[in-house]
C-alpha cells in the first residue's frame, strides 16, 4: 500500500535528477517545491477552515457557558452553529490527514534515493517504475564539501536547519500566541524545542536530508507569507511581548476575546 505513494515519488525524484543535470540538491529542491505546490490547495483549505473556526470561538465559548453541565444540548447547539456558519468541524483535519502521508512519502523518497547505507540502497531496488532510470542509481552524493549521504562535517547545514526551523516557527506563530497565556507558553516551548531537535537530527542524518529540511522550511515561510500568515514582527526581539499587527484578514486577538 505504502509503495503506491513511495514508488512514484522515487521515480519522479530520479527523473528530476536526470532533468536537472544530475544534481541531487537541485532535484531535492525541485521535488520539495513540486510536492508543496501539489499540496498547496490542501494547505489553503486547512488555513481557511482554521480561520473560520477561530472566528467562531467567541460564539462557541458562549454556548459552553450557556449549556454548562448538559453535554448533549451543547453538542447539538455546536453542530447547529457549525451548520449555520457552513463549516465542517473536521474541515481543518482532513487536508492535514491527506497531506501527512504525502509529506512522509516525500521524506522517505529522499532518504531512499540518497542510498546512504547498503540497506537503503538495497530497498531502492524495484521501486523505480521506469527501468531506464535505473542507470542513474545511485544519485551523485557530492555537493560542495559534502557527501550528501553522510552528515555535514562542518555543521553548516545543521546550523541552517536550526535557523530556518526557528524562523519558520516564529513567523508562523499567530499574534494571539504571544499574549502571555497558556497557549503562548506552549508555543514558546515548541519554538525552542523544535529547532533544537531538528538541529540534533541534522548532526547525525544524511546531509541530503538536512537540505530537505532547509528547503522545506523556506518554502513553508514563502507559502504562508503568500497567504498573509507570516508575522515578520515575530522575528524582531523587541517586538516580543507586544501584539504585532495581525496580517490582513486575520482577526485581532483582542476582538477574538470573548465578551464578558
Amino acid at each position, binding site marked *: 500500500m505504502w509503495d503506491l505513494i513511495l514508488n512514484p515519488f522515487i521515480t519522479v525524484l530520479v527523473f528530476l535528477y536526470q532533468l536537472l543535470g544530475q544534481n541531487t540538491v537541485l532535484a531535492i529542491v525541485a521535488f520539495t517545491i513540486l510536492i508543496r505546490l501539489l499540496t498547496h490547495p490542501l494547505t489553503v483549505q486547512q488555513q481557511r477552515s482554521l480561520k473560520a473556526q477561530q472566528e467562531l470561538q467567541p460564539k462557541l465559548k458562549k454556548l459552553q457557558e450557556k449549556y454548562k453541565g448538559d453535554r448533549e444540548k451543547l453538542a447539538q447547539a455546536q453542530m447547529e452553529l457549525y451548520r449555520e456558519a457552513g463549516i465542517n468541524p473536521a474541515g481543518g483535519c482532513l487536508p492535514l490527514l491527506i497531506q501527512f502521508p504525502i509529506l512522509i512519502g516525500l521524506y522517505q523518497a529522499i532518504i531512499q534515493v540518497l542510498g546512504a547505507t*547498503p540497506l537503503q540502497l538495497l530497498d531502492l531496488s524495484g521501486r523505480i517504475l521506469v527501468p531506464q532510470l535505473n542507470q542513474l542509481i545511485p544519485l551523485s552524493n557530492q555537493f560542495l564539501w559534502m557527501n550528501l549521504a553522510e552528515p555535514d562535517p562542518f555543521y553548516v547545514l545543521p546550523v541552517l536547519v536550526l535557523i530556518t526551523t526557528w524562523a519558520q516557527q516564529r513567523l508562523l506563530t499567530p499574534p494571539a500566541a504571544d499574549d502571555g497565556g497558556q497557549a503562548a*507558553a506552549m508555543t514558546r516551548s515548541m519554538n525552542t*524545542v523544535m529547532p533544537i531537535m531538528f538541529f540534533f537530527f541534522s548532526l547525525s542524518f544524511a546531509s541530503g536530508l538536512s537540505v530537505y529540511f532547509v528547503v522545506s522550511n523556506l518554502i513553508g515561510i514563502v507559502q504562508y507569507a503568500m497567504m498573509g500568515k507570516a508575522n515578520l514582527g515575530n522575528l524582531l526581539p523587541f517586538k516580543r511581548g507586544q501584539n504585532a499587527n495581525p496580517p490582513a484578514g486575520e482577526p485581532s486577538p483582542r476582538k477574538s476575546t470573548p465578551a464578558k
Partner: protein
Amino acid sequence: MISPFVGRQNAHQPVAFLRRGLWLILALVLLAAGCGPASVAGSWAGVTAGDDGLIVAYLDRVTRFNSSGVARWEFPAPGDALRGHTQFYATPAVTEDVVYAGGYDHKVYAINRDNGQMLWVNEDATSRIIAGLTVASGKVLVGIGDHGVMALNQRTGQKEWFFDTGQGVWATPLVVDDVVYVASLDKHLYALTLATGQELWRQDLGGAIAGSPAYADGVLYVGTFMRTIVAVNAADGAILNTFQAENWVWDTPTVTDGVLYAGDMSGNVYALETGTFTPVWQRKVAREGIRTSPLAVGDLLLIGSRDDTLYAVNRASGTPVWQQPVGGDILSNLILLNDDLVVVSTMSQDRQLVAFDLEGKVVWTYPPVAASQQSQ
C-alpha cells in the same frame, strides 16, 4: 477564598506538563543523537571463512568464531573505548596472522588473529568502508564508500597508492595475476596494476556495480543495477556478453563447471552457460530479493534471500530440494565450512549465525538456543 496564585498554578498544570514532555523528548533526541551506541544496522554482516572458523564484522564489533560457533575474541574488546563508536560491515580479509577490517568510522584496522589486539590503524579513507577488503602481494586493498580505492602496506598500514573513481566502491576488489579489478557505483569496471594502481582499462557497464566480479578463464562476470549480468574480457575490458535479468543484480555471480549462477533482487536465479550466456535454467526461487552469491556444493546450489529463507535447489535443473527458514534476512554471503557445513548470517540479532548441514538440518546457532527450540 481561593488564592489567585494557587488558581493560576492549577490552570497552568496541563501546559506545564506538556512543556516538560517537550523537553523530555528533546533530551531523548539528544541522547539518541549523541550519546547512544552505534547499534542501528546500516548494512549486513561481512563474513569470511578462516582455516578454523569465521570472522564476522557486524554492528559495533568484529568477532572471531570457531567452527562450532563459539566466539573466541571480539574487537573492540568489551570495555574498549572504541566499542560502540563505530560500525563494521565490510567483509574482513584474513591472513594466517592478521584480520583486516574496515569501519564506518573511515578507518582500516589490522587485528591480531590470535588475540584480537589491534596492530595498526589507517585513517586515510575519506568515507565509510563498505566494500570487503582484499590482501594480495603485501598490500591491503580497500574500496572507499564515497569514491576510490586505495592500497595499504600490509605490514605498516601506510597508504601506497590511491585510485579515484567517480562514485563509491562497495564491491570487494578482485586480484588476479597482479591486476586489481575494481567495480564501482560509477558504473565502471576498472583494471589497475597491483603494484602502483595505474589504470590498465575501464569499461562502462551502463549501471552501478555493487557486487564484485567473478573471474574464470580470462573472463570477468559481474551484475549491474541496469538489471544485467555482463561478461567482460579481463585482458582489455571488452564486453563479451550481456544477459538481461528482471531486477538489479547485486551479488557476485558464482561460476563453476562452465555455468554461471546469479540471483536478482526479485528472487530469480539464473543459470547461464558462460560461453554464450544461454540460460541453462532460470527460476523464481525466493519470494524476495537475493543479494548473496549462490553457493555451489556438490549437486546443490544454496541461495539465501531477504525472505528469511535458505533455499537448496538442484544445481543442474534448479528444482527445489529443500528450504529452511532462518529467522532473519539473509544478505551476507553464505560460508562453507569443512566442506559439509553451510553458515548463514542473518540480520536478526537472535540468529546472527545459523549453521546447516547439507540436508538442511540446523547444527548450531549463534547466539546459541536451547535444543528444543533448535529442532523447531
